[in-house]
């Protein structure tokens, strides 16, 4: 059973991401966070240690970049693969790439093909 954390303000976005992930595997346990602060709480708490984090950058309370930097600084996220959801500007994340396991940047609406393409290291079936 894979554990995946989905961080996005929008219920619809999280619903669509889950729908696409379930095309890759039916054995996924999800945890959802609707803002950066809630997501940081989940990461810090470490009761649910995800195998993958799918993180939208545009978040209320704490944006995705701040969340990642804070988690990296506190050694909470270094080994967890992360997919960033953003529309433009992969190069902007080059600093982050060096400090955490950033698998790639994909845009909305997220598709299972996009997820599979950036998660080459993950066995889905």
């Amino acid at each position: 059973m894979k554990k995946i954390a989905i961080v996005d303000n929008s219920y619809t976005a999280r619903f669509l991401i889950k729908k696409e992930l379930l095309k890759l595997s039916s054995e996924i346990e999800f945890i959802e966070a609707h803002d950066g602060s809630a997501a940081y709480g989940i990461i810090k708490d470490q009761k649910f240690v995800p195998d993958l984090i799918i993180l939208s950058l545009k978040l209320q309370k704490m944006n995705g970049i701040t969340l990642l930097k804070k988690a990296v600084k506190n050694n909470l996220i270094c080994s967890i693969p992360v997919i960033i959801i953003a529309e433009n500007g992969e190069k902007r994340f080059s600093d982050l790439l060096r400090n955490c396991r950033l698998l790639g940047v994909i845009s909305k609406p997220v598709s299972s093909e996009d997820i599979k393409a950036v998660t080459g290291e993950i066995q889905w079936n």
Partner: protein
Amino acid sequence: MELRGYSNKEIVDIILSALEGVLGRLCGMRIVAVEDAEDFDVGQRFYVETLTPISGVVFYEFALETKKTIIEKVFDDKWDNIGRVMKDDCFLEISSIITEKMISKVVRRDEPVKTGFPMIVFDEYEDELEVSTGDLFRFDFRMGEYPLSVILCIRSQEMAG
């Protein structure tokens, strides 16, 4: 239309491409631009403020039948089974994605695109918002047989043409 370096047709193509990338993909329906579109009942309007590199506002208007089709395709469920909050969230999210796709098509690759959080236009604020945004440029489309409109207001832009 004051979007530096772009003709009216190019703007229509940019919006159309963004709509196809979002609504076309989510709903599996063809989207076409329409000239001289007939008026339709709008209900709520949604808007997203664009901040960088283009400052402006993008409004979205969906006919009820368009809304129903989008909701039922996105959630794989009947319109009546979906709560109001989820419907609003869906249109806010869709408006946000379309706007980001549109703006990203007119900026250089890797240039950051900043947009505000999507909002609903409430009646009591509508006039005030329109006045504050200046001239509005309307573009009409059809998703299958269902109408929708995208209304742009560009305040300023800081980008290479």
